[in-house]
């Protein structure tokens, strides 16, 4: 009862001080830093830019502000000399708890206000990508607990030291530690600035929020433990630190709760399931070769639990002849092997907990019985290898599931499927569409509990890649008889309709096929265009299918003037990359001028010229290129490169990036346009590009087309293409 009356008094008193209003106002403003100076999430996903960055900036800056007020308030009574009086009236522990609770209450109200203040702007900016639950979860999971942690740390430090400047110094050192190189790869140690890595708008993944929540819980335990410990250091009976500490030990609940909370934090640190405990370098293991013999059939039974991000699986192998001695299989380090049976008999096994690229090896020995069934049951929360961070390559969420290799099924070292098919049964939420190598799984049974069990047989030897998300599959054909299977996130349906993306795809493929030749991927059958989540970085193309990056049709991309005059043209630009760069003809961009971008911008211009006429194309392309090149030439550092060298490296980098953007997107297209005039016009240039494409589109990435090669095809020299 005493606590609640003290709490009410403290809360009222705090609300009457101007300082708390100032701190609250500054905390409300702190997310603004995320739009300008502090941008830890740099990927193109809109939710990262407009939710991740502001929340992280607000979290870190606000935490410092709340620490300031915690220290100032801690010192207030001592400064005014009323601390002795207050101690005589109110029990110190209850009083300290009431003060902390009052600050925590106000910080919670400010967090709620903060989430509401930035809501309209974020909703407008994210537009159709806005997800209210995802937005509020950031504030609840990251900002709120971090501010609490900061308050508890600051109060504890002040209570132990009883010196404002010393407390500020220690807090600053702890804050520095959180941002320093020391914690850069130890993500859970970043107590002030929880890490948020890859973001996706269409396939929102809550892996980082899960890790954020876990790390906040861990740090809350540690901070609360330190806070309980600091209560024992509270000076009493005019005694010093050690005398007061000895007196406080009589209150047994204080050391017990401090020890319990700190131990809880330590346990949480040790058993964290998110990041592997292996090294930061990827270990290349040539000796771990995959065998393709000894097994006549393989069946996998997988069940996802997206609420907890876990998987439980069963792998069945019909073993023809067991190998003598120990066999081994590899699984994601987050999984536990529940049982191994052979011919119905449980087998002994041992797991070597040595994390290699986020995986563990499990050893077992089979009895000499031929043609029996080996069953491995496993499950758990997939761990991300330390060497892969901050890119998440294994995640099971409500909206998106992405797993590969040993995240899906055991990789047996001694056994493999020589021929035949792999059976797969996957139980998962009924609103997600599963894909294996761009191929949707279509046959399923409804389970009646919001899940479906997909059953299929796959003509592959191992499941290397599994993706499930809210996908839409569109089928259409172009006038050049190219059949498309366009697979994209259903959140992008309105954009696909609004910007007539299907027509753009057909136009681009028809145009490029007519002018440069048929893409090897569209050679036969249906061509699949698969939108990949920006979480799953590093897309690829295989025969008959190509991935295209998620952010191709996000508002940010569709408003980037470098790529085209409007959203449709930007999308066209991205599609033309099927011919130039990426999955088409590779260009050697090492000289900072020649690149696939130049060819792509030029081709976009030509397509637009054909579509909308010369006047439009000149206005939005050629004139824009000329203006930007002129600005680049006028730039002080380009006129005086000697001054560029005087700048710090980070500024030099900024100017180099700006220059390379202009070179790639503006100067090179202008130079190709000049080449077009010199070689005899558009038709001649099309012939040259077509020949170059046909010669180089199948050449490996290691042998990209250089600027010199392009000049040789044109019969021109570098001097010929110099701009006036």
């Amino acid at each position, binding site marked *: 009862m005493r606590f609640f009356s003290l709490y009410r008094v403290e809360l009222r008193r705090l609300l009457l001080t101007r300082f708390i209003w100032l701190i609250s106002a500054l905390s409300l403003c702190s997310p603004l830093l995320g739009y300008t*100076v502090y941008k830890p999430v740099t990927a193109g996903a809109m939710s990262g830019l407009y939710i991740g960055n502001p929340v992280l900036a607000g979290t870190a800056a606000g935490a410092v502000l709340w620490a300031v007020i915690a220290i100032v308030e801690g010192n207030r009574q001592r400064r005014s000399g009323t601390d002795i009086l207050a101690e005589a009236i109110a029990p110190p522990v209850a009083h300290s708890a009431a003060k902390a609770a009052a600050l925590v209450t106000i910080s919670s109200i400010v967090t709620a206000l903060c989430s509401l203040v930035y809501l309209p702007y974020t909703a407008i900016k994210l537009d159709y990508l806005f997800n209210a639950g995802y937005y509020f979860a950031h504030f609840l999971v990251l900002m709120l607990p971090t501010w609490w942690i900061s308050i508890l740390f600051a109060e504890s430090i002040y209570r132990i030291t009883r010196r404002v400047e010393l407390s500020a110094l220690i807090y600053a050192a702890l804050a520095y530690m959180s941002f320093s190189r020391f914690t850069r790869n130890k993500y859970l140690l970043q107590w002030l600035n929880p890490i948020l890595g890859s973001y996706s708008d269409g396939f929102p993944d809550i892996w980082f929020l899960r890790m954020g929540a876990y790390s906040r819980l861990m740090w809350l335990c540690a901070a609360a433990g330190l806070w309980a410990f600091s209560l024992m250091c509270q000076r009493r009976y005019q005694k010093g630190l050690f005398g007061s500490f000895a007196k406080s030990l009589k209150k047994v609940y204080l050391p017990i709760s401090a020890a319990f909370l700190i131990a809880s934090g330590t346990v949480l640190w040790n058993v964290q399931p998110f990041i592997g405990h292996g090294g930061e370098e990827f270990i290349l293991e040539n000796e771990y070769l995959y065998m393709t013999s000894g097994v006549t059939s393989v069946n996998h039974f997988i069940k996802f639990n997206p609420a907890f991000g876990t998987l439980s699986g069963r792998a069945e192998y019909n073993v023809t002849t067991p190998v003598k001695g120990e066999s081994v299989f590899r699984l994601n380090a987050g999984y536990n092997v529940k049982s191994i049976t052979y011919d119905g008999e449980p087998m002994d096994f041992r797991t070597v907990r040595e994390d290699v690229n986020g995986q563990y090896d499990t050893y077992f020995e089979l009895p000499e019985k031929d043609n029996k069934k080996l069953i491995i049951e496993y499950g758990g929360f997939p761990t991300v290898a330390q060497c892969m961070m901050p890119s998440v390559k294994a995640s099971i969420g409500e909206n998106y599931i992405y797993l590969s290799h040993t995240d899906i099924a055991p990789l047996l070292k001694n056994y493999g499927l020589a021929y035949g098919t792999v059976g797969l049964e996957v139980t998962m939420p009924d609103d997600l569409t599963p894909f294996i190598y761009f191929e949707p799984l279509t046959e399923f049974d409804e389970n009646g509990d919001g899940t479906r069990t997909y059953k299929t047989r796959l003509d592959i030897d191992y499941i290397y890649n599994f993706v499930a998300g809210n996908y839409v599959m569109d089928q259409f054909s172009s006038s050049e008889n190219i059949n498309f299977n366009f697979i994209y996130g259903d959140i992008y349906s309105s954009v696909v309709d609004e910007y007539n993306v299907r027509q753009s795809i057909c136009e681009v493929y028809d145009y490029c096929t007519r002018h440069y030749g048929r893409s090897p991927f569209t050679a036969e059958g249906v061509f699949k265009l698969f939108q990949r989540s920006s979480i799953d970085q590093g897309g690829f193309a295989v025969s008959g299918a190509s991935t295209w990056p998620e952010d191709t049709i996000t508002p940010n991309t569709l408003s980037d003037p470098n790529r085209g005059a409007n959203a449709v043209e930007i999308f066209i630009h991205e599609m033309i990359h099927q011919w130039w760069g990426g999955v088409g003809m590779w260009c050697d961009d090492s000289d900072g001028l020649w690149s696939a971008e130049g060819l792509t911008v030029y081709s976009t211009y030509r397509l637009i010229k054909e579509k909308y006429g010369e006047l439009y194309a000149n206005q939005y392309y050629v004139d824009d290129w000329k203006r930007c090149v002129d*600005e680049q030439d*006028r*730039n*002080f*550092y380009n*006129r*005086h490169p000697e*001054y560029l060298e*005087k*700048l710090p490296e980070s*500024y030099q980098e900024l*100017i180099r990036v700006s220059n390379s953007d202009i070179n790639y997107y503006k100067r090179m297209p202008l130079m190709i346009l000049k080449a077009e005039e010199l070689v005899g016009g558009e038709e001649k240039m099309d012939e040259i590009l077509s020949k170059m494409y046909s010669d180089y589109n199948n050449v490996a990435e290691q042998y990209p087309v250089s600027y010199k090669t392009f000049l040789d095809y044109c019969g021109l020299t570098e001097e010929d293409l110099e701009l006036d």
Partner: protein
Amino acid sequence: MTKVFGYELKRMLTSGLFIAMLAVNAVFAWYVLTTEVIEGIAYTAPFSVWSSCAFIGKTLPLAVITVLLLQAGYYGKQQKRVEIITSAAPMTYAQTMMIRTSVLGICFLVICLVDSLLGAVFFAAFFGYYGFGAFILPALLEIIPCFVFTVGIGHLAGRLHCSLIYALLPAVFIAGFIGASGAFDLFGGGFFSAYPLTLPIGADGEPGFVLNSAWLIARFIYLAAGAIILIANSAFHPKIKRA
């Protein structure tokens, strides 16, 4: 009067608000230098007179906001309570206003000096440039009319109602950070970023520094208007309301 001036100046310069805002101004000035000026304003050298004037112009809105916050103290409730006592001093209202305006002017100058000092350190450290003499006159032409006009408006607003000074803050913010780039740009940040782009380029690849007559006339208008408002404010003694 000198004693009162000295006391007022000491009180203002040592106030927590001034020191905190001076620090904020310094941080902001460095931010402007290292993000905008470093690129060179309007394609000129970062240490050109154009860039220097644009730098001063971009830092002025925050300096004006600081002065308005300090000025709000003269019209606050606390000040009104002690006004009955301070008004007993053998000074006319005009003298009091002159002291207050001078104190605010010195605070404003200190901020501008700190900003300029940072600019000088930046130019010297980054580019080895020390020819600061050419920057002084254009900078004074930017600073003085801007101060006289805004302090005049501030006194007028404060006299009508204390909260009106706070209402001026967003107006200054908008005019300073999102404002026009024409000759009537009160601060000059926009004008000095846009005007050089309209001038012919010289042999060194940059437009020569010339002051636009329209801009000079606008500075004179701001200076005259501010001075008139200040004189009018000082001439008419407001009635003291007893609390």
